[in-house]
C-alpha cells in the first residue's frame, strides 16, 4: 500500500502533474488497491473534514499579513532595520532570517504561516541582496520549524488534548527547544559562512540604525502587540492573524503606500496560496483516514517496537520512526494517528508525556522540510519562485542541525520538562 502511495505520488510529481492532482491521484489509487475500493465516497467526505478544521483558519491571515506587508513596503522597512543591526555579520541576512522566525514564532502557531508570510518577505530581501534563491528558500523553510515549537503552537494544542496534558505545560515545554533550534541554525549559518562567500555589507552607524528604527517603528512593534494580545488571552491565534492583517492595512494607509490594486492583489495571492495548502491537506486527510482504518501505524509500530526493551534504543527507533512518518503524512493527521497509538508504549518505557510530546512535535515538524510531502518546501518554492528540486537539495544540509537538536532533546528530557516543571511544579503534583 505504501509503495503505491509514495511511488505514484513521486512519479506524478516528476511528470509535471500539479501537486494537488498528484496527491489526489496517489490517494485514490491507494484506496482502489485497499479493502475500501468500494468506499470511495470517503475521499470527498474526508476532503471536507480536512478543510473543516478550526485551528487552520489562522493560515490565511498569517499569509495575508505577509502579503500585505509586501504590498505596503513594510517588509523593506523591517529588513532595513534588521539589516542595519546584524547585516554586517557573516551571512547577515541568513542570520536575520533565523532570528525573525524566532520572533515570528511568538505570533504564529503554524510553520506554513512562517514559510508563506514571513518567508515571502525574507526570500525577497535575500534575493535582492544577492543571496542564491535556493539558499534563501532553504534557510526559510528550515527556520520555519521554530514556529510551532515556540508558543503559541497549534500542534501542541492538539497534542495536549490527545495526551491529556495542560496546554500551558506543553507551551512552556516547547519554548527552550524552539530557541535551541534557532540557535543551532544560527551556528550552522556562521560555520558555513566560514568557508563560503555570502553577500556582506559594512556595519551600519548608530545613526543609521536609529534612522531605520524610526523608519520602521510602526512595523517593528507589531509582533509585540500581537504576541501580547495572545499571551494575555484577548484573542485566539486566528484573531491574532486578523489583527496583524488589519494592522498592516492601517500601516499601508498611514505610509500612503496601499492602493486598491495592491490590496486586492494581496488578497488574491492569499486566497490562492491558502487554497493550494488546503487542497493538499484535504487529500492528505483522506489518505490519513485510510492509514488509520487499515491500522498501518499500529502495524508499523508493532513491527518497530518488537525489537528492544532498552529505553535508549527505543528512543532512537522512535525518532527515526516519527521522522519517517513526518516525511509522508501532514502533522495534524499524523499526530491524530500516532499519539494515541504510541502513548501506551511510551508510558510503558517510562517516557514523560511532556517530553514525548515535544519529541513528536519536532520530529513531525522536520517533515515539512523533507520530500516528498514537505509542505514547507512547496510553499517556499511557490512564494520564493525557486524550483522545488533546488530548494530540496539546498535544505538537506540544514537538516543536520535540526536532527542534532532532536537527538539532544530526545536524550536530555530536561530541555523540554525543565521550564514547565519550574513554573507549574513537577508533574504528578496534580493528577490527571
Amino acid at each position, binding site marked *: 500500500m505504501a509503495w503505491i502511495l509514495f511511488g505514484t505520488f513521486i512519479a506524478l*510529481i516528476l*511528470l509535471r502533474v*500539479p501537486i*494537488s*492532482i498528484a496527491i489526489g491521484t496517489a490517494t485514490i489509487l491507494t484506496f482502489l488497491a485497499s479493502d475500501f475500493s468500494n468506499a470511495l465516497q470517503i475521499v470527498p467526505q474526508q476532503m471536507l473534514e480536512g478543510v473543516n478544521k478550526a485551528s487552520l*483558519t489562522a493560515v490565511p491571515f498569517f499569509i495575508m499579513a505577509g502579503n500585505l506587508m509586501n504590498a505596503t513596503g513594510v517588509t523593506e522597512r523591517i529588513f532595513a532595520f534588521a539589516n542595519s543591526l546584524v547585516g554586517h555579520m557573516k551571512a547577515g541576512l541568513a542570520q536575520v532570517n533565523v532570528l525573525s522566525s524566532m520572533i515570528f514564532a511568538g505570533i504564529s502557531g503554524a510553520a506554513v504561516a512562517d514559510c508563506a508570510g514571513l518567508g515571502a518577505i525574507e526570500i525577497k530581501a535575500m534575493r535582492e541582496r544577492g543571496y542564491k534563491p535556493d539558499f534563501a528558500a532553504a534557510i526559510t523553510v528550515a527556520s520555519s520549524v521554530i514556529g510551532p515549537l515556540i508558543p503559541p503552537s497549534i500542534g501542541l494544542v492538539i497534542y495536549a488534548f490527545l495526551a491529556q496534558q495542560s496546554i500551558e505545560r506543553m507551551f512552556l515545554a516547547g519554548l527552550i527547544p524552539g530557541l535551541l533550534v534557532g540557535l543551532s541554525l544560527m551556528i550552522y549559518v556562521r560555520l558555513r559562512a566560514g568557508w563560503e562567500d555570502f553577500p556582506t555589507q559594512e556595519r551600519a552607524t548608530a545613526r543609521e540604525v536609529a534612522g531605520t528604527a524610526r523608519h520602521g517603528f510602526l512595523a517593528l512593534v507589531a509582533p509585540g502587540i500581537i504576541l501580547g494580545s495572545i499571551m494575555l488571552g484577548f484573542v485566539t491565534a486566528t*484573531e491574532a492573524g486578523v489583527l496583524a492583517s488589519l494592522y498592516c492595512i492601517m500601516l499601508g494607509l498611514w505610509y500612503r503606500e496601499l492602493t486598491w490594486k495592491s490590496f486586492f492583489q494581496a488578497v488574491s495571492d492569499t486566497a*490562492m496560496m491558502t*487554497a493550494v495548502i488546503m487542497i493538499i491537506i484535504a487529500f492528505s486527510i483522506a489518505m490519513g483516514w485510510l492509514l488509520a482504518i487499515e491500522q498501518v501505524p499500529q502495524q508499523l509500530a508493532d513491527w518497530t517496537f518488537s525489537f528492544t526493551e532498552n529505553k535508549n534504543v527505543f528512543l532512537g527507533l522512535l525518532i527515526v520512526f516519527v521522522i519517517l512518518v513526518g516525511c509522508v503524512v501532514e502533522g495534524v493527521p499524523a499526530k491524530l494517528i500516532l499519539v494515541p497509538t504510541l502513548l501506551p508504549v511510551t508510558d510503558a518505557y517510562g517516557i514523560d508525556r511532556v517530553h514525548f510530546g515535544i519529541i513528536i512535535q519536532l520530529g513531525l515538524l522536520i517533515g515539512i522540510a523533507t520530500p516528498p510531502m514537505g509542505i514547507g518546501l512547496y510553499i517556499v518554492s511557490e512564494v520564493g519562485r525557486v524550483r522545488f528540486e533546488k530548494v530540496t537539495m539546498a535544505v538537506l544540509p540544514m537538516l543536520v542541525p535540526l536532527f542534532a537538536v532532536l537527538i539532544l532533546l530526545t536524550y536530555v528530557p530536561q530541555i523540554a520538562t525543565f521550564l514547565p516543571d519550574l513554573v507549574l511544579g513537577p508533574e504528578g503534583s496534580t493528577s490527571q
Partner: protein
Amino acid sequence: MTPYEIVPEGPLQRALNLADRLNWSLGGAFLWLSNLCLLAMLALTAATIVLRPLSLAQYWMWPWTMVFFIWLSFFGFFALYARLKDVRVDFVAGLFGPRGMAITRIVSDAATLFVTGILLSQLPMVIDTSRGVYNGAILPDGFELPRLALSIPLFVSTALIALNALLDLAKMAAGLPENLAESHPEI
C-alpha cells in the same frame, strides 16, 4: 502563456481558443469567489474581536467564518487549477525537451481526469448521505446551513477542472500550446 496571448488559426483553433478564454475568465471568477470568502472571514473575525468585549458578538459569527473558510478552499480548487497557481515540478520534463513536455502534458490531463472522474462519480452518494446542518451557521430565516452546501463548491470546482483537462487535450490535438504559468525567474 495564457489563452489571450495565443493567435489561433482556422475555425477549430479559434473555437477552442474562445472556449479557453471563457475557461480562463471563469477561473478568474472563482478566484474572486475565493477572495470574497476570505474578506468575509476577515470581516467576521474583526467584528468578533471588536464586539466580544462589548458582549455584542453573535454566536453564528464563528460557524460562518468556518463555512467561508471551507468555501474559500473549494472554490479556490478550480481557480488555482485554471489560473496555474498550483505547484508543478518541470525540470524532469524539461530534460526531455518538447517531447517531454508533450508527454507530461498528456499525463497531467489524464491524472486530472482520473481524480475528477472518481470524485464526481461519488456525487450521488454524497448527496444521498449528506444530512443535517452546519451547527450555528444560521440563515436569515432562522434555519441552519445544510451540510450538503459545504461540499457543493468542491464538486462544482471538480467538474470545471475535468472540463479544463478535456479542453486542454482537445487543444493539444488541434495543435494549440498549453497554458503555462510565467516561468520562475531562475538562477
